[in-house]
């Protein structure tokens, strides 16, 4: 199979496959779940075939002509391959976990359909090199999110889903306006054709607005904590693997790989993201809802990822890429741990929990390991990413920002370990047994992967370094 076919299959197998889920659902529930897992696994396996290409560097561009410059263009380079591997893999794990988690819920057909469509669109987005198709896949993801956030169909939940959809849609159309403005200047939506172009500040503002909304950066973040009403699998999907990472990925794709930032923007963006990171961390310290704390934590960590890309030097980019992977694994682990706890205790407020380490030791251990990774403690994977981002920031001469980021890391320690102490240690307030099967397996796997990704960091680092070299090539 050549590169082009592999990529096209990666994108369209899950998208088209997702539409067949209801058909499989007609056969039986088991068949449908098996089919979903199969599709997910296939999607996760396909990009792995592209690893040699990525390590070799260079890029392949696939193009299908449409009217008015709305061509369908795919760019296959180390950056997109890295991103596709990470998100499809985490997505696959989440599907596995779902087998146990939503076993007793209604609307499972829709659930699996949306999740697969979600992952497929993510693949499409990652490989898209046309601004409009980037936007298009992004909005398909938004639709999926909306349905998935409102999965439990309670009125307040659906309202939160609507809020998420509306806010992200708002950001997206503003971003679209920015794209159109760029089109007005360059006459093309093709990212590969506008590399190195300096775009006007207003377009940057519009596009950043969209990115910040989509990846929940202060002050456009409030939909993300509210989206915690979704099934935990979905929150994990939103936070860890796919949705919020897109904004960061798009930043790299547009502003590092694509056009250049004018004026003072390169200095302003790091400040915004660091402040966002700090505010979210502060909110996480105050919150008491398990999932909301993790949500704010996501917002906070996203600040780091943005920061690495925003400083735009090799260490920073490398760090951010690794961060996407490490945070994907660890945050998915944290959310799925929260899922097990909430599923078992039917409570969401951490003050009502306690002492669960006795009844669910694996979950507790997994939580702790993932928390260490998110905080950035070696030998877990999160250490390297955070370290490199900070290094990159200092290298770019923004020592004060690096210092604030490190202070935020202290806050991260406090809130994540506070949750651990409150939920797993201390007196048992609502003891509940650990659910066995796929859920605990996935959580443990994610925790172990967080550890292994740190111990054997040189393997993912190789891929990230290839992507970094590729991007840096354009930066010079």
């Amino acid at each position, binding site marked *: 199979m050549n590169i082009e076919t592999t990529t096209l299959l990666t994108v369209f197998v899950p998208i088209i496959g997702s539409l067949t889920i209801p058909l499989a659902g007609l056969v039986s529930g088991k068949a449908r779940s098996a089919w979903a897992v199969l599709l997910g696994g296939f999607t996760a396996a396909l990009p792995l075939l592209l690893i040699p290409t990525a390590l070799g560097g260079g890029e392949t561009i696939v193009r299908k002509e449409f009217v008015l410059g709305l061509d369908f263009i795919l760019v296959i380079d180390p950056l997109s391959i890295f991103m596709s591997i990470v998100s499809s893999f985490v997505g696959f794990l989440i599907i596995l976990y779902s087998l146990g988690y939503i076993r007793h819920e209604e609307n499972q057909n829709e659930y699996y359909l949306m999740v697969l469509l979600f992952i497929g669109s993510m693949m499409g987005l990652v490989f898209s090199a046309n601004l409009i198709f980037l936007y298009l896949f992004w909005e398909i993801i938004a639709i999926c999110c909306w349905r998935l956030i409102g999965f439990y169909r309670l009125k307040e939940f659906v309202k939160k889903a609507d809020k998420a959809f509306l806010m992200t849609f708002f950001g997206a159309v503003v971003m679209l306006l920015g794209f159109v403005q760029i089109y007005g200047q360059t006459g093309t939506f093709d990212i590969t054709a506008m590399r190195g172009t300096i775009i006007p500040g207003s377009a940057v503002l519009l596009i950043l607005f969209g990115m910040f909304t989509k990846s929940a950066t202060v*002050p456009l973040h409030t939909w993300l904590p509210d989206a915690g009403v979704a099934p935990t699998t979905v929150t994990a999907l939103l936070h860890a693997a796919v949705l919020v990472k897109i904004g960061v990925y798009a930043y790299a794709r547009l502003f590092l790989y694509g056009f250049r930032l004018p004026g003072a923007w390169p200095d302003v963006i790091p400040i915004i993201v660091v402040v966002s990171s700090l505010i979210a961390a502060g909110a996480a310290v105050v919150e008491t809802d398990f999932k909301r704390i993790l949500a704010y934590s996501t917002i906070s960590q996203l600040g780091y990822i943005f920061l690495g890309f925003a400083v735009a030097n*090799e260490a920073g980019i490398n760090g951010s890429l690794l961060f996407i992977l490490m945070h994907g694994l660890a945050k998915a682990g944290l959310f799925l741990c929260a899922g097990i706890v909430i599923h078992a205790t039917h409570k969401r407020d951490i003050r009502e929990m306690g002492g669960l380490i006795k009844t669910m030791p694996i979950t507790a251990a997994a939580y702790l390991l993932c928390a260490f990774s998110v905080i950035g403690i*070696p*030998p877990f994977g999160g250490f390297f990413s955070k370290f490199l981002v900070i290094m990159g920031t200092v290298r770019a001469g923004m020592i004060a920002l690096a210092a604030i980021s490190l202070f935020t890391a202290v806050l991260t320690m406090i809130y994540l370990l506070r949750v651990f102490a409150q939920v797993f240690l201390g007196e048992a307030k609502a003891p509940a047994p650990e659910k066995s099967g796929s859920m605990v397996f996935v959580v443990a796997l994610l925790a172990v992967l967080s550890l292994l990704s740190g111990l054997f960091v040189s393997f993912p680092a190789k891929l990230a370094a290839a992507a970094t070299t590729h991007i840096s090539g354009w930066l010079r």
Partner: protein
Amino acid sequence: MTPTTLLWTILIPAIAAALLALVPKGVKFVREIIALIAGGVSLYLGFALFAVKNLEWRLPWLGGGVDFELRLFHFSSFILLGLAGFLVLIAVYSTVKMKDHPHVRSYYALVFLSAALANGAVLSDNFVPLVFFWEGLLVTLYGLIAIGRKGANKTALKAFVISGFCDFCLILGIGILWAKTGTLTISKISVHPQGILAAAFILTMIGAIGKAGAMPFHTWIPDAAIDAPVTFMAFMPAAFEKLLGIYLLGRLTLDVFKIEKGSGLSILMMTIGALTIVLAVMMALIQKDFKRLLSYHAVSQVGYMILGIGTGVPIGIAGGLFHMINHAMYKCGLFLSAGSVEHRTGTTELKKLGGLAREMPLTAVGFSVCALAISGVWPLNGFVSKEMIFHGAIESGYTIFAIAAWVGAIFTFASFLKAGHSVFFGKKNEERPTVKENSLALFVPILILALLCITFGVFNKMPLTQFIQPILVGHVEAGESIDFTGHALSLFNPIAGISIACLLLALGLHAYGWKRGGKKAYLASEPIHKAPVLKTLYDWAEKRFFDLYEQGVIFIQALSLVLFKGIDRPIDFVFEKAVTSVGSAMSGVLRKAHTGRYATYLAWCLGGLLVIAAVLSVLTKS
């Protein structure tokens, strides 16, 4: 010895840790065998590598200057040997002391993991692997405290956050260094700490002294003394962290930065050292708990090391480094004897103990030797290293720091008089049951340490020439002497005289306090505790006004509340309420206008016609 041996020094304890974690809880024998074998192998490697001295090993890692570089040279081999020695002693001691601990599996695994990480940190010749191992110790620190008694997780979090903060400072400092020098290989960096690099030095220094437990990053140690297993105290704060912290401080001041005698940074370090000595010892003096008292000394003694290294004169630096290894020995011994007492009597409160010397004579001997060594009594090792530090402080030209160090010496001795008197000597407390001497595995490590204290003191030439002197080779300016053996044992110079006078003063203080306290040894420090100004200060300290962590947590909570209520919620309000109500209000107004009356609608149409006609005419004309 191939370079890969370096890797084995890290991997053997790590593999042992993994095995220990897997051994089921019930199988005690196997666990102890694994622990002892791994400790023995480590010690063997330590000796073997100490003989080899020079090895380098390198593996490409993340790219961009971030390589996995290990380097063995004199300094690191010395520390490596020390770490291995303490690991063996702790392992032996733990076989009895930790036998029935509920978390014994995690305990052993974490101890050996710590050893692996510490070895890695010592060997790293690149800042990234250094931080990797250095900060990795946070995990074991958290784990080892958290498995202590109930509620220990708060202290664990405290230790974790404080150490984490220091490590983050280290990272920031490293970042600045990297940005300025372009390399992360430690042995390639040698800069003058000027401008932003001075900030880099201070930040990295915080990383080093934070690990060593200097003020103000010490506050978790006294808490951990109560909450964590006592072997942990002997192992981490007393031995491992001191060795690591001072090792890094030594490398920073000797290799990475060129700290000159009398420079601002030198004075800064000396000030930190002096303050740590005095303040911590003052706190130690008034403690009523054996372990807590020891833990404050663990802080106080770091002050001597920092002061010594900070002087910037060879004898001071040598003294600081020598004090590091000496302190590790006697403080480890002291904690272990406290552990032995706790093992038998079940308590470490001074009030409830007394007269144990008769029942546990070997432990008492071990304790006494270590206590005298820490107090700097001739001819024990503490005397030698402290003398060198006094000399260094005076040579640096700032006598005030020497005075501070002497003040520290007074109270150190006073507090150990009090501790020894109330625990081992004096009258037996009637409420305390009679106990027996501990088993072999418990008192042998203590006695070994006591013996080492004597050896290093009496035959100080050997350690000074074998261990300390070579470290300074190449760092001492031409013409200056690096032969310190002359100073070492001469009792007859004015400086040693002052030291001895200090010890006598301490004896007097103790006697006075003992009498005033109704011949109760544990009340011997009360005159100072209740002294006019000091009483208030002590009260504040008890209320943790001076605990930066507690204050920091309050600050962080306030800040978080401000960020949450002041920024996050208002933003949410804008999206959740403001936008929707503005929308609904708009809608309401417009809907009101649609009255359903035909005439209104017709009027709108005709009005619209007029407006459009007017606009069109105007636009057409212009």
